[in-house]
């Protein structure tokens, strides 16, 4: 395209009167790499516009993130409750078992002291029997 036409289009461009097609014409001229030296500022502008348009978003859109987050939170909470109940229950049982053990131990102790008393009495009886036997033999 002739230079004077480009210059005309640029006049219109600056007063924002060019159509999208005309701007397309300008764009292809300035991206062609063969730009008149006195129009170099436009080359920077149109190159920048083209580069900017090529930029894309790299993250993919997730529509359900927030919902699932809440779901997972409730799952996590219920798991936590279950675990704490389980642990608490285990602790309670352990305490109960300890109490039972202590009780059994004290009962057994009582039994053993009483048994010892019985043994003592038996020992006395043996001593008595021995003496009786001695007396009977000497007669």
């Amino acid at each position: 395209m002739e230079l004077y036409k480009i210059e005309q289009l640029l006049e219109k461009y600056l007063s924002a009167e060019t159509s999208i097609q005309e701007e397309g014409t300008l764009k292809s001229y300035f991206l062609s790499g063969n730009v008149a030296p006195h129009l170099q500022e436009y080359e920077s502008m149109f190159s920048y516009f083209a580069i900017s348009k090529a930029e894309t978003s790299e993250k993919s859109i997730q529509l359900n993130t927030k919902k699932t987050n809440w779901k997972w939170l409730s799952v996590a909470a219920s798991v936590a409750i279950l675990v704490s109940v389980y642990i608490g229950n285990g602790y309670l049982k352990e305490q109960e078992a300890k109490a039972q053990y202590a009780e059994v131990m004290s009962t057994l102790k009582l039994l053993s002291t009483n048994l010892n008393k019985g043994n003592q009495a038996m020992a006395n009886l043996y001593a008595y029997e021995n003496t009786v036997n001695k007396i009977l033999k000497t007669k």
Partner: protein
Amino acid sequence: MNQSDFLKSVLPFKDKVFRLAKRLLVSTEEAEDATQELYFKLWKNKEKLKNYNNVEAFAMTMTKNYCFDRLKSKQASNLTLVHSNYKEKDTALETKIEQRDSVSQVHVLIDKLPEQQKLVIQLRDIEQYDFEEIGKMLDLKPTAVRVALSRARKTIREELIKQHNYGII
């Protein structure tokens, strides 16, 4: 409307949403987050979308408003987005070299424009919407769009010429 129908109707302009968000919020990460948030909002309002004959224009308006809200809340919490505190994925060296380049100088110049001119440049010169559509998106009359666009184009050009003459580039 099920999920695949929804995505079919809204995904084609995802990159445009992203680029608009990036133009306003500057950082890529912020723009990705804004895009995600916007699609989530659209999905929640999917029943209402039928009432709009131009979903794309509606989405662009929502994007613009969402980004302005983000910028406002950032200002409120004293976390203004300035050029010195955002990092692009490029290495620092690369950015430095690029900044000398007059093409990326255009980026800086657009960033300095008033919000409305920034939006108009983005929507016209980069995304090639027509004036009617841009008017709808920004709630402006097409003539007002032309005026803003003309000012923006002239400013960018003049600044580029100035820098060229001063030999900054």
